[in-house]
């Protein structure tokens, strides 16, 4: 008998960022540290608001919301090669 159970907190081990097709790249010099990308990121992996984004690529799904919302367009989405 197989029961589909998992120990709580299993996503600490299981990195869920490997299915992204595009990855966000930040040009730090252009960043105005407004915090909009950090607030809009649905995964909460852009680091602390008020600082230049520090992206945790292990969990970034590549949704592009940060790049779309950035007022100074300092985030580019780059195709991830397999």
């Amino acid at each position: 008998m197989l029961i589909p159970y998992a120990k709580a907190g299993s996503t600490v081990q299981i990195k869920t960022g490997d299915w992204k097709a595009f990855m966000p790249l930040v040009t730090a010099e252009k960043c105005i540290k407004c915090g909009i990308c950090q607030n809009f990121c649905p995964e909460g992996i852009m680091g602390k608001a008020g600082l230049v984004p520090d992206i945790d690529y292990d969990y970034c799904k590549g949704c592009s919301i940060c790049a779309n919302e950035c007022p100074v367009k300092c985030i580019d989405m780059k195709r991830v090669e397999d």
Partner: protein
Amino acid sequence: MVVVTKEGARALGDVAVNCSVEVCACYPITPTTHLTEELAKQYADGKIPQYITVESEFSALSALVGASATGTRTLTTTGGQGLLLMHEVLHSAAGMRLPIVMVVGNRAVSSPLNIWNDEQDTISQRDTGWIQIYCKSNQDAADSLPQAFRIAETVMLPVMVCIDGHFLTHNVEQIDIADKHHVDKFLPKFRHPLPLDPENPVSVGVYANPTHYQMFREDLMNDLNESKKVIKEVGEEWGKITGREYGLVNAYKCKDAERIIVGLGSVMDNAISVVDELREKGEKVGALHLRIYRPFPAEELRELLAGKKVAVLERNISLGAAAPVYVDIFEALNVHNGHSKEHAAVISSFYGGLGGRGIKRSDIKGIFEKIKSKNPVKEWVCSKPVATNA
């Protein structure tokens, strides 16, 4: 043993208490409203520890998924549209291997709206991974409910106990209800191997990617097929306690029969009485009640029906295709797996009696007459044009 004279649906409330049900969550729907009412009353009287009032059948079964995962004995009841609304959760409950038991009062499905009996609702749920027990009388139902819990908790799969709406649920008759101390011995306390527990947190029914998903489904399929052995053993053990033994099928005078009607539900009690009548006239006929429809008892049917003229009588259809029970039986008898071709049976399909249109003794006699021919028949039963006000 206590013999009571009670309505079928209400009697099952007493049986549920004897089974030490711990959590109920029900949303009332005809034809099992009286069982819902009875379970709520037993809760109010302190005989069932928890009763969750919910806003829909979807929520009823969802609540029991959570309750069952903590390791409690759970029961719900529904029928017709209510069962259809549960469809998604039916798959989940079986996939999570939760031994939830449900009493279904079989009811026709919309549209047109109809509250009367046929078996379309449960037959439409045959692929969900639930074990399905069909009862031909209220005595069958009262005996099958404790067995359902025992089977469910042994093989860790959910079980539906299907009773014909109105024909059984609203039928007042004498029912022999097993005593609580007998049931207690038969039905030990349920222990979940890995219960939900805040001290040792787990996620239930988690995501499985393409690498793992099919492995779970293959395992579920295998365990459901293997459960036939447990269902048989449990039925035999129940026979030792009460004198009424149960198996995967109830074969009535089938051994030397040339013509056999196979079907499920209360209509088979009618078929059995027709068999008695025709036997007195010297006709070699038999009746076979398909008690367990899922897992499908293909081997038993192959053994009992080989070389005979068979009529499959069912009160459900598959729109745009042949009737489902007929298809299953046809497959069981024609895919030989080493069996010789001479055992092949002539299998006819009769479907109808939908939405409460009763299949009478005369209809059953007509079916026995029709399958005398060498060629199989495929047709509606009880089909009659009704004047419309067009």
